[in-house]
């Protein structure tokens, strides 16, 4: 259940980044970004590869020192007390950071112990975490025998076994089957509902739309927009889109005269066309015109405006443009 953003107003800020800046040589990876995540809130970091998501998370996770900026986790300043800050922090890296030869339980238990839990606590929490990610029955299996999705879930369990106040998730569902993805979503939601501030990095806008209370749209190291999913879509001012796949394209100018209908950036596939409509009532008209213009239609689909559309609007390029990830 998604938390009502209004109800979060009174929750304390557990993750706070102020004017973070990080460059690698001449290239600016993170450019003065600032944000806050409150307890029980899931905030998405959305952006294409190379937008600075992983760098930002790595700075927050104390893996990389920022060139400038401040970080506070649960009120603890990174510069003042890095070790205390780490105790409050949970991190689920993009890569699967597990000991392949150890069992699922041993992995979770090891990180629980390193986090300072007693043996008894670590044992109980490890079982609990495995239960939460649906791996209780595979607790004693070596990691290398688990599927990719299971490893992802175990990766998540290791990051939250010590019940952190702030949980940083770096693309936790990469390469995961739908079933595991659902499991991960459920788990993250439950964690957030327990009062944990979750910062969720992804380039899947669907995950942000589904999981996050708020989202930060990152592009080239900058926060280009911030808000709830609805606010971002609204901010982009986009309309419904209609994708049509033809077996034989209709004659050119077939939709001319329909008010507000424009063709979006042409796809590489010439049989496919994307049109932006002003309202859904124009759909039947467009289909009729295409048929009359000699077009032979194979299929069509309707899309409501989403974060991807908003991202394109705000940045001028698609969310999944391939760039080098930092």
């Amino acid at each position: 259940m998604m938390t009502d953003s209004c109800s979060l107003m009174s929750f304390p800020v557990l993750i706070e980044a102020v004017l973070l800046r990080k460059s690698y040589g001449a290239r600016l990876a993170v450019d003065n970004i600032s944000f806050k995540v409150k307890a029980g809130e899931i905030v998405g970091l959305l952006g294409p590869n190379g937008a600075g998501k992983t760098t930002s998370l790595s700075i927050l996770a104390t893996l990389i020192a920022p060139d400038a900026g401040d970080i506070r986790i649960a009120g603890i300043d990174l510069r003042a007390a890095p070790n205390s800050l780490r105790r409050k922090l949970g991190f689920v890296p993009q890569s699967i950071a597990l000991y392949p030869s150890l069992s699922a339980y041993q992995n979770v238990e090891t990180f629980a112990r390193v986090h300072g839990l007693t043996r008894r606590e670590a044992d109980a929490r490890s079982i609990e975490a495995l239960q939460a990610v649906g791996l209780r029955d595979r607790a004693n299996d070596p990691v290398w025998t688990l599927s990719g999705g299971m490893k992802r879930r175990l990766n998540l369990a290791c990051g939250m076994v010590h019940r952190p106040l702030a949980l940083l998730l770096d693309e936790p569902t990469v390469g995961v089957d739908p079933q595991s993805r659902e499991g991960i979503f459920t788990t993250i939601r439950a964690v957030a509902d327990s009062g944990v501030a979750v910062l969720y990095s992804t380039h899947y806008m669907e995950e942000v739309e589904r999981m996050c209370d708020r989202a930060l749209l990152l592009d080239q190291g900058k926060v280009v927009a911030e808000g709830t999913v609805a606010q971002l879509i609204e901010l982009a001012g986009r309309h419904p889109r209609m994708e049509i796949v033809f077996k034989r394209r209709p004659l050119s100018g077939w939709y001319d005269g329909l008010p507000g209908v424009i063709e979006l950036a042409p796809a590489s596939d010439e049989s496919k066309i994307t049109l932006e409509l002003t309202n859904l009532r124009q759909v039947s008209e467009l289909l009729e015109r295409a048929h009359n213009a000699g077009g032979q239609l194979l299929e069509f689909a309707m899309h409501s405006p989403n974060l991807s559309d908003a991202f394109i609007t705000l940045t001028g390029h698609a969310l999944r443009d391939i760039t080098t990830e930092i």
Partner: protein
Amino acid sequence: MLRTAWIIFRNEFRLLAKDRAALFMLALAPLVIITVAGFSLGNIYGVRPGSEPYYIVVVDDDHGRFGRAFIEAIARDHSVSVVPVANLDEARTIVGGRSRAPLCIVIPAKASGEFADGRDVHLAVYIDPVKRLEAGSIELDLDRLCREVTSRAHELARKRMTEQASHLRDQLLVASDRMKAAVAQLEQLRHQFERARDTAQSEVNAQTRQTVDRMKAEITLRINRSVAQSKTIVEHDLAVRREALIAVSRYLEQLQISQYDFERWLAELKAAAGSHPSQIPPPPQWPAPPSEAQLAELSKPIEFPNQRVDLSSPIALPDTILLPRLPELQDPPSTPDFSAGISQTASTMPGIVGWQEHSITGGDAKVNAFDQYVPGFGITFLLIDMLWGVGVGLIDERDWGTLARLHISGASASGMMLGKLTSRFLIGLAQMILLFGAGWLLFGISLGHNSWALLFPAAAISFAAAAFSLVIACLANTRDAVLPIGAMAALAMSAIGGCWWPLDFEPYWMRYVALGMPTTWSMAAFNNLMIRGLDPSSTAGPAAVTFAIGIGFLAIGILGSSRIYRYVGQ
């Protein structure tokens, strides 16, 4: 930090327990290599471990006792097998064509006779130059065998001589006893003779005394009779002469009276001459007449004492008439101690000049090749396993992301380092203990007089190897780089440090280089304990140097660990 170290420490053991390849490298791989090396290169140490024997081809032209004995002696060595052939051509074929047949021995004809006669026997040994090393090893044994055979023959001869001497001594002892009996008998006879002589002496003395007494009485009688007759005659003659003397005496008295008359006359004359008396010449001097006493003596009768010869008083004759003494009987010569002389004769037979190896340090002079290879290859695999455990382990953890995750979890770099190095140090130590145990059980290696002392160099090299691996992990940035760089360094250190062959095989400059390697010092410590049989104190220096080099590695590793731990706050 200690808590982190403990968790990492425990985790390392968990990882190791799940890593079959690492376990194989820890335990089985070293044993396999040690076994192969030990059985293959044992010849370097003059020992031939293994089940397949060397074949020694033998041509026995002697066909006698010596030849048979020599072949039997060779065959007693289980590491060789004797292949008897009829002639040298046949032997040449076998030595040239068969593996593990490096040489042929030809026992010359008449060797038995010559040997028995005390002459030298020269065996001819034909070797395949290609199998020089094996042949050399067997020649060493052959040399030992020749010495043993010669020594045994000498021993037999000495034993035989001793037996003969013993027999002779017995005979001489019997003769000596008989001689002693004869001497005793002679002594008895002498005593008897002396007693008889004494008896005879007494009888002779008695008879002599009787005879003397009888003769003395007879002589006395005769002398007395003769003296009496002589006295009568002398008395008569003296009476005559006395009467004549009395007449002389009277004449002299008259003469003396005349002298007085003359003097008176002369006085009267002088008186008459008045004033010229001085012109009267003095009268001639009258001789003074004998005194009256003297003259009275002439008239005294001569009295002959009634002297009688009396021989009644014993004449001092010798108490005994000594019979001529017997020639002095010399004491019989003492019976010589034949036993000593004979024993000395037997033992002073010229011996053989031989030699026997002894360890100058009190250990066993015979070296088990595995005494070199178990610690040597143990160290090599220790280094490689440390590369795997520490070097690759760190890089893996970095690549897996677990290092970052541990860091985020609050684990300090020093704690992680301490835990990892400590665990790997103990694993390395356990590996060495395991290898030494297996070496003792499987290959019978020496653990020295104090096996516990092996822990010192084992611990020192485990520490140094762990630190060395940290250095390699810092130098190599990727997993793929760790093993080539590390293996090259580890193998070079092993080779130069004398892990694979004795350090003395190496040229001077290489031995000089070896002084800077922990392998050299740890091997020196192991050799001191295992091969030289020295006491534990001999490991103190080498182990300390090994440890010190390890400290150096550790310092470099810590300084370079920033390549691995690039995290905030590290």
